[in-house]
Structures are given as C-alpha cells and as structure tokens.
C-alpha cells in the first residue's frame, strides 16, 4: 500500500502545472509555448479523439462501420450520376471518385470540426485552462482515424475496379500527413476568426461547396477546357493534395520529388501560418466567448 502511495505521489509531480509559477506579465513566444502546452496535454488530445469516435456512432446499430459506409454510399451516387448522366468515361471511375471524396471529406470535416469544437468549447474555455489548439488538433486526430479506417473500402473498390494495388500503396501516409497539416492550418485559422465573427462558420459551408467543385473529386482533369479553367484549378491547394492522395493507391505510382515538394510546401506553410495566427489571438478568446 505504502509503495503504491509513493508511486502516485511521484506521478502527480509530473503534472503540467505542478510546482510552476504562472505570471501573466511574462511575454513569451506564444506560438512555441502553445506547441509545448499541446505536447503536455497530449492525453487530452487522445481523450477528445476517443470521445468523438466513441460517441458519434454510439446509438447506431452499425456503429463505426458508418465511417466506411458513408463514403461508399456517396461514391455510389456520384459514380452513377456522373458516369451515366454526364457520360464520364474513365478507367475505374468509382475508385477515382472514392479516393478524391475521402481526401475531400477529411479536409472539410476536419476544418469544420475545428471551428465547431472551439466555439462549442467556449464554455469549457471559460472555466478551466486547456491549450486552445487542443480542439483543432483533436479534430484532426479524429479525422485521421476515420480516414485510415476508410482506406479499407478504398482498397476493395480499387481492386474491384480492376486496378492492381502495388507497393506504392505503402506511401499513403505521406499524402495523409500533408492533408492533416493543411486541414489543421485551415481549421486553426478559421476557428480563430470564427470566435470574432460567427458568420465565418456559416459562410464556410457555402465556400466548401464551391471549393469541392473546384477540386478534382468528381471531374477528371482531361475533360476540363484549357485556358482559364486549368489556371484556376492550379491555384487551388486541394488540387495538389488530392492528386497526391490518389497516386499511391488509385494510380499505383510513386509520387515524384516535385509532387511531394509542392504538396508538402503547401501543407507546411498553411500549418505554420494557421498556428501563428491562432496562437497570437488565443489570449483574447476568453474575452469574446
């Protein structure tokens, strides 16, 4: 008993704020401090991801299977509509749509969840100290878990479409990481704005709809008219990220260095900008929410 007690004591000493002095007047690098804090609170990130995944489907019969069924259902509808009604003829169109849809859904859901969780978490933020980035980071974590699970139907649909899967498929974590960085950056930026202007959250829904059609999810690049349209879609960061996500499984190719450099650069810059912007505003959140 005594031994257990001692162990507990020493464990408690490691808590983030034990034995530390909080001084509101100390000016530190807020962005780096936030990074340090989120590392200390990694258990909270894990717990939030766990909560979101466990509670989302808790009362449904099929449970977590919905993570795979939802993109499959959407894929089925889009494939039928666009190949039958609009006559898109591309090899393995179903797999093409599904892979694009997965990358897109991950991005739109993660960035949206980052906004909703921070605004919803307002009550919590007013009562107890937690690193402000925890909501966006855990939203990204939840999205990554869902994206990983939905790789299973993607592999099945790809094989079913007659596309062989080779060893390049093992490179899928690279585009997933870049998508996560990009989504986190966008989510942080928008959630910091949404605290001030609630309209952002509503406006973003409309923007996402437009953005989806600017991204290579449903359409295939070679059907696009040359010129302005081609230029426009190249300004869209998701164009590069979705294409990179398709390479390892759907196309079965190893991305070139340029592919990786462009997507990685976009992801890194977005994340850094989002993080800096968010943490520069974080202290003011409690004044607003």
């Amino acid at each position: 008993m005594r031994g257990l007690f001692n162990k507990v004591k020493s464990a408690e000493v490691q808590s983030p704020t034990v034995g530390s002095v909080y001084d509101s007047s100390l000016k530190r690098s807020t962005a780096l401090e936030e990074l340090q804090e989120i590392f200390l609170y990694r258990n909270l990130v894990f717990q939030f991801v766990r909560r979101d995944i466990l509670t989302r489907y808790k009362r449904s019969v099929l449970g977590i299977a919905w993570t795979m069924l939802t993109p499959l259902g959407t894929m089925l509808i889009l494939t039928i509509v666009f190949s039958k009604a609009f006559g898109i003829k591309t090899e393995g169109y179903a797999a093409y749509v599904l892979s694009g849809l997965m990358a897109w859904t991950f991005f739109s859901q993660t960035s949206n969840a980052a906004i909703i969780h921070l605004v919803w978490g307002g009550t919590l933020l007013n009562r107890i100290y937690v690193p402000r980035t925890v909501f966006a980071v855990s939203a990204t974590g939840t999205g990554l878990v869902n994206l990983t699970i939905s790789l299973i139907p993607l592999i099945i649909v790809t094989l079913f479409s007659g596309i062989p899967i080779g060893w390049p498929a093992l490179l899928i974590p690279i585009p997933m990481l870049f998508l996560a960085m990009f989504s986190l950056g966008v989510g942080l930026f928008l959630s910091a704005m949404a605290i001030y202007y609630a309209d952002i959250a509503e406006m973003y829904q409309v923007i996402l709809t437009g953005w989806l059609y600017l991204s290579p999810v449903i359409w295939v690049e070679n059907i696009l008219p040359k010129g302005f349209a081609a230029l426009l879609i190249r300004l869209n960061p998701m164009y590069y990220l979705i294409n990179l996500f398709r390479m390892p499984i759907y196309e079965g190719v190893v991305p070139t260095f340029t592919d990786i450099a462009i997507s990685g650069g976009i992801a890194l810059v977005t994340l850094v900008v989002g993080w800096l912007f968010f943490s520069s505003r974080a202290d003011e959140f409690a004044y607003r929410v």
Partner: protein
Amino acid sequence: MNSPIVFDSSLVTANPLPPQAETIRLENVGVRYRIPSERIATFKEYFIRRLQGRVKSKEFWALRNVDLNILRGEVFGLIGHNGAGKSTLLKLIARVLKPTEGRVVVRGRVAPLLEMGAGFHGELTGRENVYLNGALLGFSHQEMEAKYPRIVDFAELQEFIDAPMRTYSSGMWARLGFAVATDAQPDVLIIDEVLAVGDEPFQRKSFDRIMQFRDGGATILLVSHNLIMVEALCHRVAWIDHGHVKQSGLTEEIIREYRQSHKNET
C-alpha cells in the same frame, strides 16, 4: 516539499517557501471587456466600418486597480453583488483570462471547482468520463490510472461506473465531478458556490476533503453569497464592488461592513 521553479526575476524569495508565502498576487489588475454599443447588421457593413475605423464599442472595466495578496494555507473569501467582478477574478487566477493591465502571479497547480461535471459526456461511461475529465485537468494517462480507483471509491460509484453517464442522477454526476477534480492535493482550490454537492453525508465528506487540503497547505478561494459560510470558513475576505476591491481584511470586520451597507441601502 518541491521547490517551485520561479521564472520571475523580481521575486527573489528563498526556497522552499516559508509557511506564510504568498500563493496568489494581483498587482494593479484590470480587465476590460469591449461591448459593441450599436448593432451592426451585416458583415459587409462591419467590414466597411472597420476599414473606416468606425466600429464603436463601449469599454467596460470588469475589474480595475485590483491589488491582492493571498497566502499559502489561507482560506480567502470573495464577496460582493452579482456582476461585481468576482467571477472575472476567478478566471484570472484559473489562467483562463489574461488581464488587460497589471499582473497576476499564481504559484502551483490550480484546481477549479467551478461547475461540476462540465466536460462530462452523457454517452460515455463513468469510467471513460473519469479519464476524459482527468485529461482536461492536465493529467497524463498513467497518472489517471493511479488516480482512478481512488476517484471511484470516493464518488461511491463502483456499481455504476461502466454505465453511460446519461443514466446517472444529478447527484451522482456531481459526486464524480467532485471526486475527479479534488483527487490530488492542489496548491490553489477555487470554489465558486458549489460546496454543496450530493446528499448530506457526501457534503460532509467533500467538506472534510477541502479542509484536509487547507491543512495540507493549499490556498482555498471561496466565492459565495452565503455569508454565514464565509464567516465560518474564511481567514480573510475581499469585498468586490463594481470591479474594485472595496475593502479587504479580516473576515469579521469586512462582513460587518458589508452587512451594514446592505442595511443602509434598504
């Protein structure tokens, strides 16, 4: 006793802290909220006004020129009318809010006991919620594993711990919240009108635990409208009025003055 890491260069105090060391210090603290003074209907209008620098907002100082020193092992009460600034003061100490001006120094771990069960999720089981709530308080998974049996034991919820919390009564909900928040000895415990939790025996038990913390050297901040309780528990009291510390000092005196002012009003 673990010597705290002191970042503050202006505080050259000897470690370990002497028994009467201060745990919380507020220096000339002010908190200013901006309240929009006119309704701006559209986003477009807002942006145009913003660019023209015509967004008008009323400034409201929820706290101003507040100086307070609260010592280790002290039970300190905050009294005052609703909206006087007590809750804002607690937010400053809980690290939730940074002051607009002045300086707040808090030594050690602050355990907020504000609204119990905030952060629980009804669809999760009691067990899952204990781990979630512990993470919110900043504890690691290993720490929570060590704490878990004690928490469940204190909350007396062994039988129901694997049931979803939506099936719990409000008393069970509150007991679990109290047990998680107070499992470890904090350096500062913040109690905001929520001392009465659960039934009478549990109230006694939670009260005893708070007194143990006090005896163990924790600073306890109590916000209450119940003057009898404040009188019984607090060593010192600060009377907050319209964002200022109107008076602070020994409990008996301040409460007498406070009551007197109420009599004069009526």
